[in-house]
């Protein structure tokens, strides 16, 4: 029999207060942080203007290697965008309750990473004024066109999927912030809440919409990274000649996405004092998923190495030598050790399976996954197609600056979102999860499930009402 957690009123009150706290007040440190990010972004914009003015000659992409850190970062950001929607949707579909307090963060990461990631192909274009020609003269048969369509579809779907479960929390903010809140906030929450009152009809409609989106967003998310992989796999390059690039990229995307969620969770938990709602449980379960994906990634890598290495065509010999004994050996070694072996070992031993340990493992993985994309692109392009020597690529200051600006933009949008949207899905935590035994101030009691229509429901005003008569 399913169980519904008993929700102590004081616990719920603390959750609502803490969940809405970032929306109520803003400290000096926050503005200093925003200012710092804006300075980095301004520098990146200046460097981008230099690139626009002079062309891509100011980048390291000058000789044979025409994809650099712009495309690497594009794949990286699109990858971490899978964290959110895919993870959140899969866990919602499987009715996992532990993830309720982190779904919002995961969905944030998706939308923001997509927004930032989608900028990189434009930056990489050089002549960004010609972007409209993609739509005027683009061909349906081109994987590049599929990529544009897939990302646009995914960004729209993810935004919708982020918005749906936030509606009851917008209503909560509308009713709880009070007249002390700035007028723009009150108007914003009023409009964004869509008149939510938590009536049975509204709840039924919202449930239907969320169910639809959580099912449709999973294949859309998978298709996006598959299409991203096809940009590589459908290019006539020795290093990209692989039929497993699709699932390999999807697995890599989820892998880096989980790492991104863990890091964001650790940071926001500390900064917003969410220790009571984001506990070791979330870190542990996400850590287990991370560990599982280290094995999946190792499997895919070994599959590539064994199959292509067994045949060892001429170009592949060069490629393997570059990775294993050549100039990319340190990065390749880090990818294996820092990206797969050490995170797996951290999760294997109970003593290192702590919040700090899991966060450290996530940082190792995230860095390794950026390096993985670097190792796909740069050594892949170094394999000579004709009788010429392999060329070198190293990003210039312009490229590093623009990458730093993009990372700063990612953090800026997350920081701004955290001030506008409740960072925890308050209503879902209350209704579907309840307090953890070791986190609740009051003893947890469990009682048998009552019919859904009779369940205590959190109204917009944050009070619990019961419709009908309890048995």
């Amino acid at each position, binding site marked *: 029999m399913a169980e519904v957690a008993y929700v102590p009123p004081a616990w719920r009150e603390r959750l609502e207060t803490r969940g809405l706290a970032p929306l109520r007040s803003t400290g000096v440190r926050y503005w200093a942080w925003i200012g710092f990010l804006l300075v980095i972004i301004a520098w990146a914009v200046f460097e981008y203007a230099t690139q626009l003015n002079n062309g891509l000659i100011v980048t390291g992409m000058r000789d044979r290697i025409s994809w650099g850190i712009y495309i690497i970062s594009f794949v990286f950001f699109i990858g971490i965008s899978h964290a959110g929607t895919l993870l959140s949707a899969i866990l919602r579909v499987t009715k996992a309750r532990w993830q309720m307090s982190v779904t919002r963060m995961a969905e944030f990461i998706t939308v923001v990473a997509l927004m930032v990631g989608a900028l990189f192909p434009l930056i990489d274009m050089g002549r960004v004024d010609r972007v409209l020609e993609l739509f005027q003269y683009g*061909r349906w*048969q081109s994987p590049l*066109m599929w990529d544009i369509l897939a990302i646009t579809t995914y960004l729209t779907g993810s935004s*919708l999927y982020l918005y749906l479960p936030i509606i009851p929390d917008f209503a909560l903010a509308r009713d709880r912030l009070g007249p002390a809140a700035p007028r723009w906030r009150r108007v914003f929450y009023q409009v964004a809440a869509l008149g939510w009152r938590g009536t049975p009809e*509204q709840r039924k409609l*919202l449930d239907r*919409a969320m169910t639809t989106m959580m099912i449709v967003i999973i294949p859309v998310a998978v298709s996006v990274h598959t299409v991203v992989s096809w940009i590589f796999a459908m290019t006539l390059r020795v290093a990209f000649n692989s039929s497993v690039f699709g699932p390999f990229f999807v697995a890599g995307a989820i892998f880096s996405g989980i790492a991104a969620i863990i890091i964001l969770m650790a940071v926001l938990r500390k900064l917003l004092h969410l220790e009571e709602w984001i506990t070791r449980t979330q870190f542990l379960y996400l850590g287990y998923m991370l560990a599982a994906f280290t094995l999946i990634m190792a499997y895919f890598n070994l599959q590539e190495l064994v199959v292509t290495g067994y045949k060892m065509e001429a170009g592949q010999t060069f490629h393997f030598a570059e990775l294993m004994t050549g100039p990319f050996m340190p990065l390749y070694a880090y990818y294996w050790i820092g990206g797969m072996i050490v995170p797996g070992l951290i999760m294997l031993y109970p003593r290192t399976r702590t919040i700090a340990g899991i966060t450290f493992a996530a940082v190792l993985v995230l860095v390794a996954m950026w390096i993985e994309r670097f190792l796909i692109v740069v050594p892949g392009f170094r394999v000579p197609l004709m009788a010429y020597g392999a060329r070198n690529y190293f990003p210039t200051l312009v490229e590093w600056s623009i990458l730093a600006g993009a990372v700063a933009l990612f953090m800026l949008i997350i920081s701004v979102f955290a001030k506008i949207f409740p960072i925890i899905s308050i209503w879902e935590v209350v209704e579907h999860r309840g307090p953890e035994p070791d986190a609740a101030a009051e003893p947890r009691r469990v009682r048998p499930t009552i019919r859904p229509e009779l369940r205590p429901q959190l109204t917009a005003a944050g009070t619990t009402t019961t419709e009908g008569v309890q048995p």
Partner: protein
Amino acid sequence: MKRLALAILSALAATAIVAAPAAAAGPAPTRVRIAVPPSIKLGEGAGVQAQVLDASGAPVAGALVTFTAELGFLEATNDVVLADARTDKAGVASADIDLRTDGSIKVTARFAGDAEHAASSASAAIQVGGSSQLYAQGAGVKLPGFNEAPTAPGTSAALLPGAASLWPRFSGWPVALVLMIVWSIYGSVVVVLFRVTASARRSAQ
């Protein structure tokens, strides 16, 4: 086969331009005869042959012949190597080439010479007809309507004048279909959101 090849060579020889043998003091002079089809359609392969003969008209066997085409990209024009072939006992080298540009393409057969024979070459033009499409899908699975324009007889694109030229843009119907389904689902979700708002209005009344 050899006889057939020679017969074709002889028949097409009328279109060939016979180049003057390269002057060389040591090695014996040679001459090359080239035979190409006068016209092909863009995307079709073309069989080309060249015969290397010495000064007495005897065939030179085992000579390496390089077939090139004069092609331009942006403002640069140069000879692009299409194929290499060795001559047989009849002095004939054969190759299948794939031209991907329309217009009159000058194809050259060049014998670089060796210790006993001097270098020589010959050129002929092939008229490549069709649209001005630069590249045609040369390998992989061809799905009509997806990565191949459905211009086969009987299709709507073939029946409607001018429609064929539109197909490359609109032939990605499977992609379009999937997109339409997904966006329709998004649309239905947005409609549900409107119903949430309408429900709030009804409750307020």
